[in-house]
């Protein structure tokens, strides 16, 4: 049977792609228009080349209601990176300890960590805030990142991978003289590198996209992330610099999208083999 051009499928898929590209495109185009024109409602799908200057401008000066965008981007970047790396390190160590050793209360430790799956941050906001307050971590960078590092998803994923490492590999390493640290460093981590890559993408996006927690913990505008910043801009009743707001929105989603697109193969693998 020759391949017929499956136009219904193509049509549906193109509509789907458009469903996601169009809003972004509109906002991108809108960011280059003249703000006065936008306020009057004269919108267009065609960007204005002259309007591209809004980007450097918004990076250095921000828009009405928020900080300079480059500063917020830095905060977001730092936060996402800290959360991704922090979580990966902690989870690898925990998963390693729990699967490759035996120690008293081992399973208790596992269940304690497992419980965190059932407690998303939105459910413990007030008491977590008061703990941060007691530890004097309000309005600090660690305060932004540390409470988001502990949850179990990464640990579970690594545990699953570690359980599947063939026994003979471990025995061969033992006979070669590798102790626990060497084994972790030379063999376990390299062999788990696909998982690591996928997790990095997932956690970076997770960290970048946080809203509720940074909102609570950082009242000092100098610690605003870009996501917080853009919502602030929208919320300002007397907003007129819509082109700047739109530019900020575009900048807010570029980095995580770039990370996902660049690493999408590992990312999809990691999501579908890990979460289930």
């Amino acid at each position, binding site marked *: 049977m020759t391949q017929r051009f499956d136009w219904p499928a193509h049509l549906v898929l193109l509509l789907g792609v458009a469903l996601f590209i169009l809003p972004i495109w509109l906002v991108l185009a809108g960011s280059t228009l003249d703000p006065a024109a936008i306020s009057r409602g004269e919108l267009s799908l065609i960007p204005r080349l002259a309007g591209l200057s809004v980007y450097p401008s918004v990076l250095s000066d921000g828009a009405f209601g928020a900080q300079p965008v480059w500063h917020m981007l830095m905060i977001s970047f730092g936060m996402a990176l800290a959360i991704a790396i922090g979580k990966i390190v902690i989870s690898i160590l925990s998963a*390693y300890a729990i*699967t490759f050793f*035996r120690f008293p209360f081992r399973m208790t430790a596992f269940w304690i960590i497992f419980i965190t799956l059932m407690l998303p941050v*939105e*459910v413990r*906001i007030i008491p*977590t805030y008061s703990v941060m307050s007691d530890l004097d971590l309000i309005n600090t960078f660690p305060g932004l990142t540390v409470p988001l590092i502990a949850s179990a998803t990464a640990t*579970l994923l690594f545990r699953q991978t570690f359980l599947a490492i063939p026994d003979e590999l471990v025995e061969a390493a033992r006979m070669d003289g590798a102790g626990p640290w060497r084994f972790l460093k030379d063999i376990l981590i390299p062999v788990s590198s696909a998982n690591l890559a996928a997790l990095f993408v997932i956690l970076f996006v997770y960290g970048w996209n946080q*809203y509720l927690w940074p909102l609570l913990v950082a009242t000092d505008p100098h610690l605003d992330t870009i996501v917080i910043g853009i919502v602030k801009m929208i919320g300002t009743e007397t907003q007129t610099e819509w082109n700047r707001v739109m530019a900020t929105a575009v900048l807010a989603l570029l980095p995580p999208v770039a990370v*996902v697109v660049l690493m999408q193969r590992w990312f999809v693998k990691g999501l579908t083999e890990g979460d289930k």
Partner: protein
Amino acid sequence: MERRTIFPGWRLPVLLVLPQLLLTVFFFLWPAGQAIWSSMTRTDAFGLHTEFVGLENFSDLFSDPLYIDTIGRTLVFCASVAALSMGVALVLAVCADRELRGRNWYRILLIWPYAIAPAVAAVLWLLLLHPQIGLVGRWLNRMGVAWDYKLNGVQAMLMVIVASAWKQVSYNFIFFLAGLQSIPRSVVEAARMDGAKGWFRFRTVVLPLLVPTVFFLLVVNLVYAAFDTFGTIQALTQGGPGKATETLVVKVYRDGIVNLDIGSSSAQSVVLMAGVIVLTALQFRFLGRRSSE
């Protein structure tokens, strides 16, 4: 499941697991415990005197018609978001599963939206639906629809549902596609040879094999709609107009941070906690073997 080959010793592993345990205790267990404690207290208006009131906060909650309303509203919201987002994703996944040219391009183009923050998705839709500056908003008004979500509760709800569902399609798409691709080709071909066509074949052969994925995604979507949408709703409507888009998680925030009613807010948190525990337990029971291995 356990490993047969392990390393001897207990000092090292205890050291390795300590960081996560400490973080868990400080930032999960202790706050959860505090939330449970606070949920059983009441503070007077000046914040001076706190008394233990047992389960009164809970009984107040459940006899408060506004709270019951919020529960109903949240259920409607969650169901709509899950249905809309999973439905669209399934259709797209089915199409992307076929032998098409440019399959991989479609895949990339439908996966990247995973990276959009819920709050940013809200901003994008706001910029689209704004009565004055949004392309769609203006068009609606021109068409004669009195479009202003700042005043119309139903329109506001519609907007947050669409924005929330839109953001989640990507995640569901990835899993549906993986689920479809894990169905052995030979099974579908056997069905074709048996004479099963199109929709019938999909309904009787493909869909039943997709059930584990559907169930898994259902739970994930419900949890997403209940919690992760805070950013979306807060950015778009802050729960308004009035209470039109106030879901349970928004109410926790409002009562706790804005209105400073710690007791009630904590009680609501505890209720939410219980809900998540039930959902997650169900999920692991059903997907049991694979997840807990």
